[in-house]
């Protein structure tokens, strides 16, 4: 048990070692700097406030796109899962959007709406809504019809039904969609920033890409990966566990 818990850390240490070895073999800090040369750069960006400014800009976009995609996707999935009629009408759209490359949606949003914050967030949201809808639709199809009948017989209000009958059944699906959602959204947000924003981690990566500064690209990328890992561990995983608590009581 103890040994099993160590494995992820050993595995990460292995990756770090691989990086060091590769950096030494490359012997060119322009192409692959060693991990420790990033530390002063990281400090410099942190102290100057650049890192936090761009990190903040990206996180706000992630939050917006996440909230919109989860809300729209859940509503859409719920309706499609509960009504075969609606599903047969909307399913072809869903298939098209699912197979539309993220880049195409982003470029079209920028072309049609302009290089604006709204276009950026809409592009990310549209990329994620179909996935959320598909997952929630599965959940909606698995809703217990007996509980539905019970809620109807006892004339529970719409809100009570949603909160206490439907949502608890959907919670594992929502948690799953949320986890994969965050993972996808933050990657797309970086692309959106890369292509058409003047702030954010993606913008900074674009900047240092043009300057061919690998070290700075790595500093910004790692900073953001760390933030997303924290979100995963501190918010998403605990939420997922809380939705399962009644099962283990």
């Amino acid at each position, binding site marked *: 048990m103890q040994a099993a818990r160590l494995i992820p850390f050993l595995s990460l240490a292995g990756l770090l070692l691989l990086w060091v070895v590769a950096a030494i073999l490359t012997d060119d800090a322009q192409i692959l700097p060693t991990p420790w040369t990033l530390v002063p750069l990281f400090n410099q960006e942190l102290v100057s406030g650049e890192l936090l400014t761009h990190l903040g800009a990206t996180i706000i976009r992630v939050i917006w796109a996440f909230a919109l995609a989860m809300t729209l996707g859940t509503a859409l999935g719920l309706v499609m899962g509960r009504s075969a009629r609606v599903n047969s009408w909307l399913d072809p759209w869903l298939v098209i959007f699912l197979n539309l490359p993220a880049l195409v949606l982003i470029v079209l949003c920028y072309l049609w709406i302009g290089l604006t914050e709204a276009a950026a967030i809409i592009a990310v949201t549209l990329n994620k809504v179909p996935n959320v809808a598909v997952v929630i639709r599965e959940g909606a199809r698995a809703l217990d019809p007996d*509980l539905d009948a*019970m*809620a*109807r*017989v*006892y*004339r529970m209000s719409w809100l009570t039904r949603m909160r*206490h009958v439907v949502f*608890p059944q959907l919670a594992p699906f929502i948690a799953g969609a949320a986890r994969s959602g965050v993972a996808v959204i933050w990657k797309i947000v970086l692309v959106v920033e890369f292509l058409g924003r003047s702030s954010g981690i993606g913008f900074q990566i674009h900047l240092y890409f043009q300057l061919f500064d690998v070290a700075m690209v790595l500093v910004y990328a790692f900073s953001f990966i760390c933030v997303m890992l924290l979100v995963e561990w501190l918010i998403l995983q605990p939420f997922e566990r809380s939705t399962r608590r009644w099962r283990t*009581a």
Partner: protein
Amino acid sequence: MIRADIKSKSFNGTPVLGRVAFEIAPGETLALVGPSGIGKSTLLRILAGIDADFEGSVERPDALAFVFQEPTLLPWRSVLKNLLLPHPDLTQDQARDMLVRVGLEGKEGLFPGQLSLGQQRRLSLARAFAQAPALLIMDEPFVSLDSETAEVMLRLTESLIADHRPATLFVTHDTREADRLADRTLTLRSHPGGAVID
């Protein structure tokens, strides 16, 4: 007045119920019997308004309670919440009194999964009687309980019905049960165009 006048009910073109018409007077208890698969549960669901896809008409009061074949509780909400959510007007004290009445005192904080099947059935009964329904519908409420527990439940149901006097329609396989609880018995029998009442 509770009145059902069903002309026909079918599932995907297969007729299940034919012409089924009956009335239940206030305070009257009716047993519904018939072989398995004849359409008893279907008839109850139509009367309760759960299934609206049929030919005919049904008249029923709003204050309706249904005891399902399974306890049909919310597994993710506490015993007390399972009573309060369907009855938002019920006070905490009334809910606790009801739990005492069905022998679930001290269990209000547990989840349904932590109750025995018999206890879950009691909770389902408590939910049905919590706000004096005008019409009570029960689908084999005592099935798959050992005979002792079934007897306790039967007595409990008898006393709750005696106190609240709802119009009651319940399905049973047990003629003894029907004789004890019911003023009248409806029997569904098969018929080419769907089951009818004798």
